[in-house]
């Protein structure tokens, strides 16, 4: 029986998504000079099939406007409880949002994608304006947005 304990412990360690193995990843979203108010920007993760996994950062403090981040709202079901501690100011035109996250190692090269939804008052909403696969090969390679995002890039440390 005693001999089985280390085996069980090892099996458990491999089965659980190990947050102990995390690495700092910096996500940078550079905005275009779109000429409007501060943009609401949300970064969140889905798997390859599009199933929502979680939010990384919400830039924009008023929850009543989150419905304009339509894909995030639809996929997360408006995960307000999750946003505690990962919410900051909206991002002005021409500025750059930089978010550093101790990301679970399993997310890199694990078939996951980062989405960026943006919205500006009295201007168009851009659900999933950036969708980038989370891979070591994709790190450091800027991706353009089709709305207010000029470039999106993530860097592994």
């Amino acid at each position, binding site marked *: 029986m005693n001999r089985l304990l280390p085996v069980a412990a090892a099996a458990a360690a491999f089965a659980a*998504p190990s*947050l*102990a193995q*995390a690495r700092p990843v910096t996500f940078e979203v550079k905005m275009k000079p779109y000429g*409007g*108010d*501060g*943009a*609401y920007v949300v970064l969140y*993760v889905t798997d390859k099939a*599009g199933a929502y*996994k*979680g*939010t*990384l*950062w919400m*830039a*924009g*403090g*008023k929850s*009543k*406007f989150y*419905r304009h981040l*339509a*894909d995030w*709202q*639809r996929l997360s*079901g*408006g995960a307000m*409880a*999750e*946003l*505690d*501690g*990962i*919410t*900051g*100011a*909206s*991002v*002005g035109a021409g*500025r*750059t*949002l*930089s*978010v*550093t*996250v*101790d*990301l*679970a190692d399993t*997310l890199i090269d694990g078939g996951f994608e980062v989405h960026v939804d943006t*919205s*500006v*008052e*009295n*201007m*168009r*909403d851009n*659900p999933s304006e950036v969708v980038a696969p989370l891979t070591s090969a994709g790190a450091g390679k800027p991706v353009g947005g089709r709305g207010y995002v000029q470039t999106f890039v993530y860097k592994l440390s």
Partner: protein
Amino acid sequence: MKARTLIATTGLLGVGIAGAALADERCNVRIADWRPRSALVQMAETMGWTVQRIKTDDGCYAIQAVDREGREIRAKVDPASLAVLSTRQMRERHGDGDDDERGERTRGRREHGDRAERGEGGERRGGPAAAAAPEDPNAPPPANGLMKSRPKAQVQ
């Protein structure tokens, strides 16, 4: 003669009420029951529409599309059943972006009215109020399993 006038008036009133009801169409569907955008695009394609833009409005899908005859239309669609609740045809374009500009202005006014209705008027989304969003420095990371500690963010 009087009877005919009365019938005609009643008929017109009926059309007016129906029109108002369509204009005020709202959807009350749980997020979990929303069909994906891909299904909406598929539905639009079966109707011969080429979807240009999808957004949400009053809890419904609102799509901007071009029909088989090349006319630009806007339609409100129930997000659960994908039933078309209302459609309206936009004016033909005479200049570069003429129609678009008008559409955006209309949206802005409606949104403002919507907010005023809910008592949210007077605040701008990306204005100073949003920039001063409260942050709890001791908040733990969300329990979504994505991160080990609370992220650090800055806007430059």
